[in-house]
């Protein structure tokens, strides 16, 4: 399986190249993820932010190869995880990686746990799938896992059912299942969106701790810029299936370049700032069917749009060291060479 081990430490754990994922609507395919490339380094937490319909969840489902069959498909691009091309894999091959080397946690812990099986059963299911382990060992290991995600009385909880637990506890169980086989990459899709703010704080704390202890990489998908600021090393801002901006977390918040990112930042009410009016973005995200064919997809809503934005598609290019932006404002006015001066 691992014919191509990682050469050196900074090689990316996950590399997505020119990914195009399309969904079929009335027989025609529309790209929900449109030519997206990014890397996740070992032990890095990469945030993917964007509003509903920007393609952030579809991207994670593509990486996990969990797209709904017959409706969604990867049409182009490469997904290279730890030197292995995932996009070419068959279902049975990917099953050996999914849950073991790459794990995922979802937004709604109630719907992602099976209500008719005990917590212990669902934890052991993962262990039996990927490890040679006896029943007794599996039970002990699941208790240990529950303990490691901060569940008190794990010996009791292991025999309980999802409905007996609170939302925060269920999300802890989901995390325990996800980390059961010590994955190298954890994809967390809105892991705290359904939770209250004090519980969210507990879960974020736990995720950070587990990431450090297990040396995992994490892709954190969220719409909450506060969560991004708190958790991530690097951030990808998506709009309408494309990456608008990619940079480290500090420059994203203190030097946002893409007009969309800038507006998004101004749209959130802040605790320590008093503004009478929040900035808004006129209009709404175009639906998959009505996506503009040429030019920048944000052009129609962009306050800084120029005539050529409607015809020329911006490329995601490095504008400052480590800071990529896909916007014509930067392609014309600032030649790349001058930036480092």
């Amino acid at each position, binding site marked *: 399986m691992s014919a191509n081990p990682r050469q050196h430490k900074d090689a990316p754990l996950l590399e997505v190249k020119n990914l195009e994922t399309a969904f079929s609507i009335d027989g025609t395919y529309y790209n929900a993820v449109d030519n997206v490339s990014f890397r996740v380094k070992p032990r890095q937490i990469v945030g993917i932010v964007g509003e509903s319909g920007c393609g952030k969840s579809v991207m994670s489902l593509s990486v996990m190869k969990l797209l709904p069959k017959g409706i969604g498909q990867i049409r182009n691009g490469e997904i290279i995880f730890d030197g292995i091309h995932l996009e070419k894999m068959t279902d049975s091959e990917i099953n050996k990686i999914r849950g073991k080397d790459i794990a995922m946690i979802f937004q709604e812990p109630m719907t992602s746990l099976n209500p008719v099986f005990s917590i212990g059963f669902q934890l052991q299911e993962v262990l039996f799938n990927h490890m040679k382990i006896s029943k007794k060992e599996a039970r002990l290991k699941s208790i240990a896992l529950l303990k490691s995600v901060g569940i008190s009385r794990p010996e009791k909880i292991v025999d309980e059912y999802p409905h007996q637990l609170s939302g925060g506890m269920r999300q802890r169980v989901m995390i325990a299942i996800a980390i059961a086989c010590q994955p190298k990459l954890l994809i967390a899709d809105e892991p705290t969106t359904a939770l209250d703010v004090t519980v969210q704080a507990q879960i974020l704390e736990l995720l950070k701790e587990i990431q450090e202890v297990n040396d995992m990489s994490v892709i954190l998908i969220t719409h909450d810029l*506060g969560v991004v600021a708190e958790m991530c090393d690097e951030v990808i801002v998506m709009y309408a299936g494309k990456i608008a901006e990619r940079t480290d977390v500090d420059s994203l918040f*203190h030097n946002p370049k893409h007009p969309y990112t800038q507006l998004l*930042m101004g749209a959130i009410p*802040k605790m320590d700032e008093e503004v009478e*009016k929040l*900035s*808004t973005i006129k209009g709404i995200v175009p639906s998959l069917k009505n996506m503009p064919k040429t030019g920048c997809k944000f052009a129609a809503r962009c306050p800084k749009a120029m005539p050529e934005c409607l015809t020329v598609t911006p490329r995601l290019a490095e504008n400052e060291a480590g800071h990529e932006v896909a916007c014509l404002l930067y392609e014309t006015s600032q030649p790349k060479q001058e930036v480092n001066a």
Partner: protein
Amino acid sequence: MMSTEHNNTAVLKKDKSSNEVLLEVKNLKTYYPIKGGILRKTVAVVKAVDDISFEIKKGETLGLVGESGCGKSTAGRTILRLLEPTDGQIIFDGQDITNVRGTSLRKIRQDFQMVFQDPYASLNPTMMVGHLVSEPIRNYNSKSEKELKPEVMDLLAKVGLPEDAYYKYPHEFSGGQRQRIGIARALALRPKLIIADEPVSALDVSVQSQVLNLLKELQDEFDLTFLFIAHDLSVVKHMSDRIGVMYLGGLVEVAEKDSLYAEPLHPYTQALISAIPEPDPRKKKERIILEGDVPSPIDPPKGCTFHPRCAHAMPECQSVKPHLKEVKPGHRVACHLYK
């Protein structure tokens, strides 16, 4: 730092609220019975709202925050008399409406309206937007659809919907636009008080800011008083003049928003504020992580309901229930730490 298109014109409207009290809630309790057994006897009660008191002045926005199950929505609905209060008093515009019924309740209801959380569920999908917006008006007088059309058009324009929205159906609109329809409906009768229950929590940030801005504009234009219920503290802070924090059916702290955020007194408020992820990676704040979950409101802890999770709990917290006390001018807190 970033593009600032915020206009500063309205900053001076700061103290628009008068001293006249529009709504006063005294010792309000709303209990839900839990029925069990063959005879459907009441076996227990959920104390959803348990003895809360506050008042809202004319033109003011009072924010009500708390986590799920704290009773904030039940409180809102009880004030509108959509739920029957178990005990206590609701005084609206000088009139005790706690026990008003029938036609007189119907008459008073013109003066208070509600904006709901889910713009997908709160609009009848078979009704044209024009009819949806005129429905509240038709409820109270016998004007025809035709006569009302100019008025409805005016309302649609006020909430920022295009003219042709009149003939469309809710499914043709996005979430943000549907929330605008809901707001137009709430405005139709020119109410004095609007209770907005999580009006933006189903919306994306960029749309959320549009709706928040709209609500503020309308408040100025129509002299509205708001009870703004939400779980998102930064949104509540943006919208409110004063804020009440609820925990397990009780009001634990009420204060001017700046006072509440600058110096939260109740340990629960402190934890709640510290838990909000700040959208700025350079700010690393001290976080108070609460242990465990909110206990069940069927069998709430004795004494102070927060004591099992409180880092400052003292022996008396387990037995004596603290009541709201004014600790600083305009800042009330229900906690034994403050004598």
